[in-house]
């Protein structure tokens, strides 16, 4: 693992999110997609955000950049280089997005205008934020960033459909980086790509910090990518971050039962038995009370269904929200009836994901 864990942890974090809440309305009531999430990101650091579908990770990614659909409510504190983004007026956010905050999406083809050449894409991007920039300078900067991505200058005037999937994703990354934002959110950047191409892209993202000193939030459901490329990892479940810590540490010694079960149910080359987590990710309108994971948790105790666990910090530096972890670390004293294992209903196929 790169020594990035030591990079600039002492300096001011590039992104500091505290108690973020992002809720949006639905017929049945507010959907608590992100429910009191806190994390920080240092300069040049890569934070992986993992979770299954429906856990709120994409919403969080978009919320950080202010790309939420109308009618969504967001509060908490989101400090970007010291300034609270939530109190920034929309117009200013527009200016900052792209220049200081970047985003990489999942399906590159749908995000690129098929009628515009690559050169025109770059011109549009650069001119929007730096008015009056000359065509030659656009070309120079574009070619420079394309070089880093391994896209030859001969392709500068091609159209998006003339590129293959992996090249398009590199293109997207290049467009996101040409303005040198200090913070980039990558939302499932490789899900639509083949394994070999995925590995290439992940390598590029991993090396970003060397070239550009970018802080990256990598959102994915693929634990393997996180293990290889990220410095720290945040595990998200039902709108909350249940575990957050150094990637190596979390993968070797997961503290939260969900993280553990997720790792166990991931089929890898070393898998010898099939494991799965019974049931399905919960409904975000009415998640289970107290600890959201308790209906599916093998370590659930009585207290897990009545009182929500608080976020605590382990000796290793990992932050975790779990009564069982607290108990194991001796941070809390529980009465006998609180510790008693929770009797849960058999989760049938009817409730599975």
């Amino acid at each position, binding site marked *: 693992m790169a020594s990035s864990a030591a990079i600039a942890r002492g300096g001011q974090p590039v992104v500091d999110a*505290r*108690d973020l*809440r992002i*809720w*949006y*309305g*639905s*017929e049945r009531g*507010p959907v608590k997609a992100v429910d*009191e999430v*806190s994390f*920080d990101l240092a300069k040049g650091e890569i934070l992986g955000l993992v979770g299954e579908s429906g856990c709120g990770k994409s919403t969080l990614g978009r919320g950080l950049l202010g790309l939420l*659909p*109308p*009618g*969504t*409510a967001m*509060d908490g504190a989101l400090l970007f280089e010291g300034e609270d983004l939530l109190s920034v007026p929309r117009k200013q956010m527009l200016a900052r997005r792209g220049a200081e905050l970047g985003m990489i999406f999942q399906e590159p083809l749908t995000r690129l205008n098929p009628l515009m050449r690559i050169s025109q894409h770059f011109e549009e991007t650069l001119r929007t934020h730096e008015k009056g920039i000359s065509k030659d300078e656009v070309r120079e900067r574009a070619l420079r960033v394309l070089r880093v991505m391994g896209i030859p200058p001969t392709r500068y005037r091609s159209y998006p459909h003339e590129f293959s999937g992996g090249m398009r994703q590199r293109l997207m990354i290049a467009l996101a980086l040409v303005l040198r934002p200090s913070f980039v959110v990558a939302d499932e950047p490789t899900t639509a790509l083949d394994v070999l191409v995925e590995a290439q892209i992940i390598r590029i993202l991993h090396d970003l910090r060397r070239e550009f000193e970018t802080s990256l939030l990598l959102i994915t459901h693929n634990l393997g990518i996180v293990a290889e490329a990220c410095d720290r990892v945040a595990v998200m479940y039902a709108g909350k971050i249940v575990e957050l810590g150094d990637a190596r540490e979390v993968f070797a010694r997961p503290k939260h039962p969900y993280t553990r079960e997720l790792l166990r149910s991931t089929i890898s080359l070393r898998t010898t038995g099939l494991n799965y987590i019974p049931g399905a990710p919960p409904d975000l309108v009415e998640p289970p009370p107290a600890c959201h994971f308790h209906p599916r948790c093998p370590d659930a105790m009585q207290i897990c269904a009545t009182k*929500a666990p*608080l*976020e605590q*910090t382990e000796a290793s530096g990992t*932050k975790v929200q779990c009564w069982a972890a607290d108990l194991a670390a001796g941070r809390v004293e529980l009465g006998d009836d609180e510790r008693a294992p929770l009797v849960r209903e058999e989760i049938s196929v009817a409730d599975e994901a």
Partner: protein
Amino acid sequence: MLRVLLSPFRNTSGLARWILVAGLVITGIFVVCAIFAPWIAPYGFAQTGEHGRFPKMAPPSATHWLGTNDQFFDILSRIIWGARTEITVVLLSVIIAVVVGMPLGLFSGFIGGWVDRLLVFVMDALYAFPSLLLAIVFAFLLRGPLGGGTVAAALSLTAIYIPQYFRVVRSTTVSAREATYVEAARAIGAKNRTVMGRYLFGNVIQSVPVIGTLNAADAISTLAALGFIGLGIQPTDASEWGYDLSRALDDAQSGIWWTTLFPGLAIVLLVTGLTLVGEGLNETVNPALRKRRIRKVRLPSRASSALVEERS
């Protein structure tokens, strides 16, 4: 099947729902007139007198609420009976057009190849003609064998609407045909017939109700136009608003407004009603037009903020 057909109705909300409801109410009034004409209308549609002849071109009065026209007919009765005519003819023509156009579109889209190309060519050619012109041609041709009654009128209209159903159903079929579940149907051994009938049909008829209502609206005005020209339904066969309008053309100059106003208003209202129904449905069936209902959300104040202060 019913569930699929009714789902567009149930999915409406907001403005679309109001449009739909308004349209349904207006159309509903006319439908009631059509069904209950013999009981609602004060007089018959070709009745020129009750106890003695009706006055000619009499203004609205107690005995003739909307007045009478130059053929001694009571206008109110003509309107009410006219509703029956319009609705019957339009219903007939739309139904026949659907029954012919839809299966053709389904078949053509599914089979592809030269059959498809040929059918598309024919349909496009028909579609390229101005609809009124085509209706006139057909009405003229059918007048000989079928006379001037409702059936002839309905058939003249049918031909111009078939291409519309054909095109829409065909394009939906072409895209649905590539769906995985169609391939799955083949994989389990379904014959082409079955694939078309059981698998594609239900998924392709989604847009038909919308087109149907918009068609109907257009049909009303085309029928009225035919009647206006004189190629529509004869006044003694049935009451037809367009015809009445054509007879009343010169009346306005003499200050006689009731002979033109009421038939004209009837046409406008019925067409509007049907259009509203169609547009209301369209909002739901066509996802591009659908706007997500924005629900405002208020975040409650933090109850547990005191407890969660301990953090790095």
